[in-house]
């Protein structure tokens, strides 16, 4: 063939190749190689294909890090669960500080590789180094290098509250982050207004991150509607419908359909499914199935883990109707899990917990689900 046709066919061929390459890893495309420079670190959570989402609250940014777990193979069924006594002391020792100077923010287990990740701050001052620690399935504990990694990022609440003339800006503490059905839901709590925002980001991140900055309210006795900060939430499926169960700084546990979160609504009323009572300070939640029934475990900052059955679910009530306090929810205290702060599923009937021990330090332990 003549030269022009040859060149043309080469161009066509290379286009065809790059087109298919871009579509090869659905979730991993859109990532670039570079260095993640964390200003701070907070909640973390896994998405599909070994992607770890990391919140940097000071930078109002969420990172999506390719951890390579997808390629490590599914080791979690074969490997031993994570059991490390005084994991806080060990991490602090590696980072060269007293364990009292280490803050463990969050904990996540990669369902693909079985590796456990912890987000920590080395130090309690404003310039504390933010570190992501990994314990591999084979037991090696080390910081995760964030230089020359494949990642993507998105900015949260990049709107009028920021930066007018360098004056003090609203600083949101991020309390929870989770991947739910193609979106990342992030809960933040303002240090000024008594409000929290539930931000939803599409994942893969799009050029215009759809930020549904909605407010969550809850009702009590069908009468008082107030703004209600979400402290922690967990996704779950009711049949084919995705929901989140959210626990607040005030006590009721509410459920919210994800379809409402991603709609254009500015305001959502969560429907109360349980009143958790006094002194409850929820930290983390886990939904699991046992003997065909679904249960929820809630860990608490003041000791004690609660278990409640999720079925039957109450129907969404009209605002003016009475909401029963304990609709379908018998709350059982699980003494065996006392001290658990964070909990992640592990294997068929187990979980790995981050737990405060008698000496006041923190263990990683494997427990059976009650």
């Amino acid at each position, binding site marked *: 063939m003549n030269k022009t046709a040859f060149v043309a066919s080469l161009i066509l061929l290379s286009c065809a190749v790059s087109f298919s390459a871009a579509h090869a890893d659905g979730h991993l495309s859109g990532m670039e190689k570079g260095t993640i420079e964390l200003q701070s670190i907070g909640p973390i959570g896994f998405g599909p294909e070994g992607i770890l989402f990391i919140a940097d609250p*000071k930078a109002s940014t969420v990172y999506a890090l390719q951890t390579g777990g997808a390629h490590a193979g599914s080791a979690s069924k074969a490997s031993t669960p994570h059991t490390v006594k005084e994991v806080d*002391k*060990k991490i*602090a*020792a*590696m*980072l*060269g*500080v*007293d*364990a*009292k*100077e280490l*803050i463990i923010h969050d904990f996540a287990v990669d369902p693909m590789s079985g590796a456990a990740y912890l987000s920590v*701050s*080395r*130090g*309690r*001052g*404003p310039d*504390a180094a933010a570190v992501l620690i990994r314990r591999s399935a084979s037991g090696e*504990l080390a*910081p995760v290098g964030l230089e020359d990694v494949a990642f993507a990022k998105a900015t949260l609440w990049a709107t009028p509250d920021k930066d*007018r*003339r360098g*004056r*003090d*800006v*609203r*600083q949101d*503490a*991020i*309390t929870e982050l989770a991947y739910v059905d193609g979106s990342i839901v992030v809960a933040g*709590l303002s*240090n*000024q*207004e*008594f*409000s929290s925002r539930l931000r939803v980001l599409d994942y893969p991140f799009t050029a215009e991150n759809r930020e549904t900055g909605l407010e969550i309210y809850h009702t*009590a006795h069908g*009468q*008082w*509607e*107030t*703004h*209600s*900060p979400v402290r*922690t939430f967990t996704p779950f499926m009711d049949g084919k419908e995705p929901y989140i169960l959210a626990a607040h*700084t*005030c*006590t*009721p546990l509410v459920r919210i359909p994800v379809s409402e979160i991603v709609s254009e609504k500015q305001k959502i009323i969560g429907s109360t499914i349980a009143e958790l*009572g006094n002194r409850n*300070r929820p*930290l983390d939640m886990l939904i699991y199935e046992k003997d065909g029934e679904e249960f929820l475990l809630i860990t608490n*900052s*003041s000791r004690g883990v609660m278990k409640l059955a999720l079925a039957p679910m109450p129907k969404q009530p009209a*605002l*003016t109707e009475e909401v029963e*306090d304990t609709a379908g929810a018998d709350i059982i205290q699980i003494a065996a899990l006392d001290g658990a702060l964070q909990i992640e599923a592990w294997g068929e009937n187990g979980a790995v917990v981050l737990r405060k021990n008698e000496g006041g330090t923190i263990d990683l332990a494997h427990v059976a689900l009650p």
Partner: protein
Amino acid sequence: MSRLARVGSTVLVLAACIGWVCGPADAAPASDAPSIVFVSQDDAQVIAIRDLPESLLRALENKNPSQSEWQKLYPVRAVPMDDEPFDDQPNVLGRYAVRDGAVVFAPTYPISSRVVYRVEFRPAWIGGEGELIRAKLILIPAKASSPTQVARAYPSSKTVPANLLKFYIEFTQPMSRGVGYEYVRLERSDGSIVIDPFPEIGVELWDAHQQRFTVLLDPGRIKRGLKINEEMGLALVPGGAYRLVVDEAWPDAEGNPLAKGFEMAFKVTEPDHNSPNPETWRVDIPKAGSHDPLTIRFPETMDSALSERLIWLVDAEANEVAGRVTFEKGETRWLMTPEAAWRAGAYVLRIHPRLEDLAGNQIRRPFEIDVSEAAVEAVDSVVDVAVVIR
């Protein structure tokens, strides 16, 4: 400071100053006695073992140990003061190198002045000659830290409503994060302590410098109709007198306690369920050519942080006027002192609808809405107040 002995004994070496190379001060070391010291390198502190035999240094360079070999040869562990290393304590993370005639350990994270570094060097690990040497190093910063204290707390008004939502505590320097709830309490005038007035929400609420701490009062106890309110009642009872107390033991970012504790006394009035209304505010307009503040007088105390951020002044070209905001009279006065003298003209005072009073009632909606009543007309956009300066 003691002389560095050679064989096997543990010696407290020295407290080093940043930027200096230090050695035992009171004796010239024997020329073949190695020393373990802090050294400043590339703007960071590293640990260096100096005066090792040349042959050993060359053997190390030739061998080029792996990281795990280095960690056996030259372990460095960080131990809190008055503590011993625990079983299987991992080494401090860092990189090893032979550099400038010394064997250097550069930690991944900066040397902390709050731990003791237990360093050992075991030439036998690579078949080198020389005995095991050990040292304990502590870094003392050259600059002594100045004491931190509470600068002020808000609201500073003599009375607050029973459904007060938060306090702000401002410190003179950055503080330690994650321990705050142990050091703040509410006391009644008789000295008794209010139980659990502040919900432990797990994350602390600080500004970016960790100098302003936001303490939320438990909204569950405030909100009507919630179980916890019915069972435990209001933390602040109308008619009562209370103190917000900050314990001096609260460590600052350097780990030092406050220079002194702090108390703020106040009385409690009935709960406030009304949204603030800018129509009830008065504005004192300064004269053109002056630097006098523009003052807003509120009929009630407003939230300080939000008033600072959510009220602003723009000129006729919609440019924000540069200036400094201060408060007076228990945050019932908002004063904006301009950077440049006022120019005559039309201005607009802009008020964001999310501005709150002490009970969390926003301009656009009160904190609690009774949905059994008629729908509240919400003000959802910025409120503009025209101001003319002559």
